[in-house]
């Protein structure tokens, strides 16, 4: 934190970062209602990281220190868990401010891991952060299903349908299992089978994770969500079931 005084003079700079965000959020996200009470900072696990806390972040935005708040890595350390809104007397939406601070980073300078995962998800219609294509997914599911039907005869007529039209539940599936730990998918299938649930995966949009939202890339996030929902609607499913 440089010690030279922050100078404020002349006409108020109009397009402050905080003003832009206030225009986007419903009733301005109450962003300038802060009474600096510290409730958010008192309950935020990210307080202290990068010598930053939610109150200080909002304060810097309010005082127009735009370049500082759009460059601090702290924005990647706020998970958006909303524990600050939960107790803020003024219901100030700091996580959204952080989201748009993330968005103000040039896309390629954003953390490699998140950028990579989001681009992977955009690579094919699976929207899987590990890039598994619908066919790979189908292959793994069918392969594991076959193996378990044999090994555990009680589940010989267990199903793990993909694109089953008219199914009641449309399930998404985190990419980690199909890609690295296929066996971990089985317990869920067994449960669904035991209950006799009419469910299906979607060949498209089955990826449960959403790194595009973490990347604060709106189009990508919209694309991933729209792909999944369209698929669910296309299959005529009634419930979009998150297994997270």
């Amino acid at each position, binding site marked *: 934190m440089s010690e030279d005084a922050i100078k404020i003079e002349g006409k108020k700079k109009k397009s402050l970062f905080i003003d832009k965000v206030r225009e986007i959020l419903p009733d301005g996200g109450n962003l300038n209602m802060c009474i600096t009470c510290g409730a958010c900072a008192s309950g935020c696990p990210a307080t202290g990281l990068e010598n930053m806390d939610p109150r200080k972040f909002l304060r810097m935005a309010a005082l127009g220190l735009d370049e500082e708040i759009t460059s601090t890595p702290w924005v990647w350390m706020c998970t958006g868990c909303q524990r600050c809104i939960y107790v803020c*007397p003024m219901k100030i939406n700091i996580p959204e401010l952080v989201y748009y601070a993330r968005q103000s980073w040039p896309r390629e300078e954003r953390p490699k891991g998140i950028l990579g995962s989001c681009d992977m998800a955009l690579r094919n219609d699976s929207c899987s952060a590990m890039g598994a294509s619908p066919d790979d997914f189908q292959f793994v599911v069918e392969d594991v299903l076959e193996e378990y039907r044999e090994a555990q005869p009680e589940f010989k007529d267990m199903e793990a349908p993909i694109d089953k039209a008219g199914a009641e539940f449309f399930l998404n599936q985190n990419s980690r299992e199909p890609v690295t730990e296929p066996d971990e998918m089985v317990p869920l299938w067994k449960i669904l089978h035991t209950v006799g649930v009419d469910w299906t995966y979607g060949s498209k949009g089955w990826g449960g994770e959403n790194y595009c939202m973490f990347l604060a890339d709106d189009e990508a996030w919209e694309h991933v969500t729209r792909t999944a929902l369209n698929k669910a609607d296309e299959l005529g499913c009634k419930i979009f079931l998150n297994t997270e």
Partner: protein
Amino acid sequence: MKTVMNSHNESQSNNKVLVIGGGLGGIRTALDLAEAGRNVVLVEKDFSIGGLMTQLDRTFPTNNCDLCTISPYLSESVRQLPIEFLSMTRVTEVEGEAGDFTVTLNTAPRYIDLDKCTACGDCYNKFPECVRFTPGLDHRAPTCMRYPHATPQAFSVDMAKCNDIQQVVDICPAGAIVPDDKGTTQQISCGAIVLATGAGIFDPSGLDNFGYKNQPDVVTSLEYERILSASGPTHGYLLRPSDNEKPKKIAWIQCIGSRGMQKGASSYCSSACCMFALKEAIVTKERFGEDIETTIFFMDMRTFGKDYECYLERAKNEFGIRLVRCRPHSVIQRPGSNVLSISFAPFDRSELVTEEFDIVVLSTGFKVAEDVKKLAQDMGIELNEHNFAKTSNFQPVSTSRPGIYVCGMFESPKDIPETLIQGSAAACMASSNMPAPEKAPASEEDFPPEKDVTGQPPRIGVFICDCGNNIGGVIDVEELAEYAGNLSDVAVSKSVGQGCTQESMKEIQDLIVSEDLNRVVIGGTSPRTEELKFQDLLRRAGLNPYLLEIANIRDQVAWVHGDNPENALKKAKSLIQMAVCAVKKNRPLIEQTLPMNKDVLVVGGGVSGMSSALALADQGFKVFLVEKEDKLGGFAKNLRKTLEGEDVAGALGEMIEKTQTHENIEVITGANLVDHTGKTGMFRTGIQIGPEKSYRQIDHGATILATGTQPNRPAEYLLDQHEAVMTQADAGIFIEDSPEKVKALENIVMIQCVGSRCPDNPNCSRICCQAAVKNALHILDINPDAQIFVLYRDMRTYGFQEDYYRKAREKGVIFIRYEVDAPPNVEASGDKVNVTFVDPILNRPLMVTADKLLLSTGFKVDQKATERLARIFKLPRTHDGYFLEEHVKLRPIDLPVPGCFVAGTAHSPRLIRESIAQAQAAASRVQTILAKDVIHLSPVVAQVDGDKCAACLVCVRACPFNVPYINADGYSEIDPAKCHGCGICAAECPAKAIQLMKFEDDQIMAKLEGLFERKVA
């Protein structure tokens, strides 16, 4: 003038006021009206009156328990004053308009006849589950144990829990149980109605992050008060609810249910929580252990009342109360332990500090209870968005419906002194709807002429009550009466059963007359509650009321020696013997009376002075309004608008015009007070008028001091040295008069607490925060692009002002805190000023080039002027120069000199609305005195025997109220009107020249004789 019996016949409806709510505000209104000659119906939905205050342990700022100051209030309010008190009663319907209302009242069945019940408690002891006196000891229940002497002093039966009412009927010795009590619905007509319904407490169980619901050691402030209170469930021992251990660390969390927009909170500030949290912390350290660590988590410390800032400083420096400026996120209880841990972010660094506590007190704010909201809506009263009664700045206690007034919490959240001020103000406004009061309530005429007993040998009547089994169950009253019978000079000695019922009183009265008795001894309950009743009995029997002695053989013998009846009887005999010996020495005392001059002198022609004058003049009192300037208006002259946008200038103009043309007000401007003598009802004040100082004397019966205070103009931050720097008042005029200049402004800085809360003006000036917010909003209305910075120490926008503070933030005003030891720095820079300060959150310096710098300079006392006035009226002042009232909490308008009252900023800095309320209150207090044609002086006063007095000045020095003085004849003189009857001078006088009436030395010696007579004889 027909003397009106004080019964409540219907035809006199327009002289009757209905007061809804028996809390402190309601009681004050009822008392003021009754003492001013009005009939009052006081309605309370609970079993007994007293409301919230009776559950508090100690109250700020006096920190004493006030039980003894409040219980006389409560019993006084039911004594002979024309107050009809209806407990367990609700208002169901109100029709009619000002001057002629018809109200339907519904009284829930108490199943006990109030006239018969003597609160002996037999039914309570036998059937505790269904007979109510103390609604429960669970400190979580907000209405737990109230206080030992409830009014009405009676029980009630909870029919739901009672399986056989007949058993209860049989138990009651007074036959007071009414099994088929259906409750009553009645209609009364009245001239005005006062809503004193008080406020409900916010229920924090919705705040899961503070864990109130499942962590017993997280308590609300009312529950903590009950834990502290000697009459509370833990009998005054501070114990942790979960395991009854002594706590070592206690935390308070402020603004629970206030200043918030979610989880059921209200957006306004509840005004009193900061003070009662500080008080609870101080009392915890003071009475329960210096070693207990007390921490208060707060957002802004709002101690804006009179001397409240000094109270805060004492809390910090003298008692070591730790204040942490942070609102904690959660109160977390580790599994398996009952330690509560709180983590908070210190103001100046990004770090999480976690500390552990034994008890966490949630300072819960106030809300309008549902039933009160419904009642107000049924009565057609307009409510504001928080469901409080809507009032205006210039009519602070009048609701939207003419003839219906409001006082206390239901008008807005406030502390007890403000509640009492509004209580009196509502009384004044209520009586403005009615013709002038007729004759004062019943006084001596109804009693037969007093028998002259001088010189007669004593003929004593001893009457022993058995008070059901209260006394009879432990002491053999017949043997006691028989023993008393053969004491010397006892003519009649009889046991009279239930002494305080109508029949027994009649029996005693007849015996006094038939047996020509000239002394009476009553063996009964505590004189604290019974003395007045029996004194009236003696008057009715034609005997001077002070020829009476009461032996307390119930509360102090039978009730406490039930385990040893034999000793109890012996002790009762001793007490009766002591009373008999003492009563021989009692002399008839006459209550001195003075003729009453009914004119009023109001000093000070500002908003407060004019409001008092108008209120009194409308009631037909002649008012002399003395103002030292040559125009009326006072400080309000340089205000244009209030925070709520009401036009001050217009209303002030109207008020000045009305005052100058009112036929009952004589306005004397350019006048200075020079001398003041006399006592209540007979004051004489000398004034000098105009440049030629022509002297004139005014005779009057009461005085209201509304001399206001001075706007402060400290030479700080280049004030009066740079044209860009001005005070908030100047800014108010600047914004109104030159909006186009405002349009050109780019950056504006405001600095709060300039010249207030500092060593030479230690208290808060209360009005500057709202002035800053008002001006900020005004500027932004005209020029939305202006950037405004407000540098503050604590934003004290209490009550509904908090909504305006939020609006200011919403519109982009940035509020930045500064520490008192690191104030902002201001330097001229051409026609602008550079203001440098440090933002504590970023810990970085900022420099704003401001077109205008607005300083919130507040008030400061003109020491020379008030010191001169204080000397003329012999009035004490607080250390920073304001007039000191008689009791900071319970008598905020009366001054220690009887007949003198204070209103407006002469009492302490306050808003226009609060000044007008206090002015109307002072008018009401004046009416309580001037309603009577004569003033009764209490007979219990000290009298000096001139011959014995050695003029040694001991009494002059000892008297706490410096009443005695050495007169022209060289001996000490004590003015009966001023003597408070404490008797300290009598005890200290080395020449035994002073005797306190009713407690003379020979009476006390006689008691000692009586006690040890058998031994020495």
